[in-house]
């Protein structure tokens, strides 16, 4: 995607002209990826046209609960997070890293040709934009780069969407990652639905966005239209489903590794790993080596992995994190605390997916609150350090 230039231009796009944007992007070689209804959920997949968008659908999310529901209007983006996140397109869930063929006493390794993927992401919410930037910090560093991730990332066109409706488990306001998209996008849309109008306020975010949008019918936004869009977002910010107190959260978790609350969570956590799968920033992968029956051909594949398995921390002799307590604690302290030391930002963007998709409804905001409160009410719970 192009460089972020907050050009500030605010334009209005009528809903019936959205298809033209799709067409322009397709003409420029992008495949369109965005939300669509499937299997009674709003998922992210390749879109053929605007007709594939979840027009008139919304979602009801809560701890361990997700349902989509019909609205009375034809809003295209009136739902919160999806069980999918955009990482499925940037960090492939499964990929072949290289292949090898036996030759003589050894073998030949073939990396294959790098493929170019130009993708336009439609409907990227602010939380997910932050998540993409967070994964950039993981995979594009001064020392190491994932070439496939980088290539996909560089050939991305992002059409962000400012949320008009906070989900039942959302807390981007607490994490300062939304609801308004402020970081790098090419275009940002705010959907406004009035009695007899359905339009988008469009913000140009980059030269690339400007170029593409110049071919789409639009006009400069009027003051009242800008206000309407602002209200939509402000309303959303006020109605977050959850709240997370992030004050000194890293230090809080660092000193509470032995808090009894972990035993409590462990008694509920199934270590199913759903949270890691739906989390837009979870990036752990594993590497597997395969061979075929003939033994002549081998492959190395990388696939997404889950830190809740016994395998994950296994070294000879056993798993380092052999209890559910240790594994849940690892996930939440990584997400909210050690991530900060590793990458300079929190790993959590407040999208609420982990809360929604946990089969037992474990709530990351509630667990953190419990730990914080345990310090206030029972300082003795944390025993004073004694030298052995």
């Amino acid at each position, binding site marked *: 995607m192009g460089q972020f230039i907050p050009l500030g231009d605010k334009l209005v796009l009528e809903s019936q002209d959205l298809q033209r944007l799709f067409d322009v992007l397709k003409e420029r070689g992008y495949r369109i990826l965005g939300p669509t209804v499937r299997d009674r959920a709003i998922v992210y997949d390749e879109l053929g046209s605007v007709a594939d968008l979840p027009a008139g659908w919304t979602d009801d999310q809560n701890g361990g609960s997700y349902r989509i529901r019909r609205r009375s209007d034809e809003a295209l983006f009136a739902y919160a997070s999806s069980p999918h996140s955009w990482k499925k397109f940037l960090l492939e869930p499964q990929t072949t890293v290289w292949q090898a063929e*036996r030759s003589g006493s050894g073998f030949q390794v073939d990396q294959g040709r790098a493929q170019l993927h130009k993708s336009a992401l439609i409907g990227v919410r602010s939380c997910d934009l932050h998540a993409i930037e967070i994964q950039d910090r993981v995979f594009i560093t001064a020392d190491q*780069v994932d070439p496939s991730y980088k290539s996909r990332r560089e050939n991305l066109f992002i059409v962000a969407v400012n949320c008009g409706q906070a989900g039942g488990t959302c807390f981007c306001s607490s994490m300062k990652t939304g609801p308004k998209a402020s970081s790098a996008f090419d275009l940002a849309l705010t959907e406004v639905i009035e009695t007899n109008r359905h339009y988008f306020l469009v913000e140009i975010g980059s030269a690339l966005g400007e170029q593409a949008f110049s071919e789409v019918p639009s006009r400069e936004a009027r003051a009242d239209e800008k206000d309407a869009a602002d209200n939509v977002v402000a309303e959303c910010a006020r109605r977050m489903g959850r709240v997370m107190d992030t004050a000194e959260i890293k230090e809080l978790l660092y000193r509470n590794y032995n808090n009894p609350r972990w035993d409590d969570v462990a008694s509920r956590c199934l270590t199913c790993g759903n949270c890691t799968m739906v989390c837009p920033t979870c990036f752990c*992968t594993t590497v597997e080596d395969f061979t075929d029956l003939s033994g002549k051909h081998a492959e190395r594949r990388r696939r997404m992995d889950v830190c809740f398995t016994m395998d994950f921390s296994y070294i000879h002799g056993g798993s380092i*994190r052999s209890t559910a307590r240790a594994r849940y604690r690892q996930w939440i302290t990584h997400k909210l605390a050690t991530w900060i030391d590793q990458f300079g930002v929190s790993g959590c963007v407040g999208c609420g997916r982990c809360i929604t998709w946990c089969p037992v409804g474990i709530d990351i905001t509630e667990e953190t609150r419990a730990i914080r409160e345990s310090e206030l009410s029972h300082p003795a719970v944390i025993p004073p350090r004694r030298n052995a």
Partner: protein
Amino acid sequence: MRTDAMLTHLYRVERVQDETYDTFTLELASRDHSEERPFAPGQFNMLYVFGVGEVPISISSDLAKPRTLAHTVRAVGNVTKAIRALGRGGELGLRGPFGTSWPVEEAKGSDVVIVAGGIGIAPLRPALYHVLSERKEYGKVVLLYGARTPADLLYQREMEQWRGRSDLQVDITVDRALRWWRGNVGVVTTLIPKAVFDPTSTVAMVCGPEVMMRFTVAELQKRGLEDDKIYISMERNMKCGFGFCGHCQFGPFFVCKDGPVFRYDRVREWLGKGDI
């Protein structure tokens, strides 16, 4: 900036030396002998056996001789047994070197205490080679090495050479022995109280099972070493080797790139937390 860190490179086994009944040292060279991969002592490579899998193995050779890249391997699992089965002339895949290294430069001007437990001596050997190659730059140099039984002692011929040196103190112990053994018996920590070094001006490098390292650090602290002068080498499950896959995390650290060598004061608090 390396973008090929997942790509494995072909290396040929030039020599296999059986050290004990389950441990062997491989000498590797790139296929046409042209490639040299400079490494620092303490680093590791990911070794791959065609169709079987990949494991992280510390480099155990002399960094002054990058063409005879050596790895000391204990054959305990599928991949390591398959590596042993390769034999001379066999080819395997190599990628690396990865990880942080022993503070051989920072230790100049100080006494050096190297404490190795079991196969932990393998990643320490390059550090010892380096210190010995620039012997004048260091004060007293002490090697303390503990193994399970006399049959598990590695690098026996070299040990004899090292013991013969007047500028190197070598003390070896085993956890148990049969009657013929005339050396020390007892855990390696028992060698620390008697080792000759100046705790106010010493750098210690420790490698072995985590429990052994913890007890060793405690003994070194008893002798008066500060925590920022003690270095340990940690181990965790590694898949990628360069900080992308997330498996080797230990608190905020990725053992593959923030380690495996860690200065003790930086990880002390995390080691105390257990099962992280």
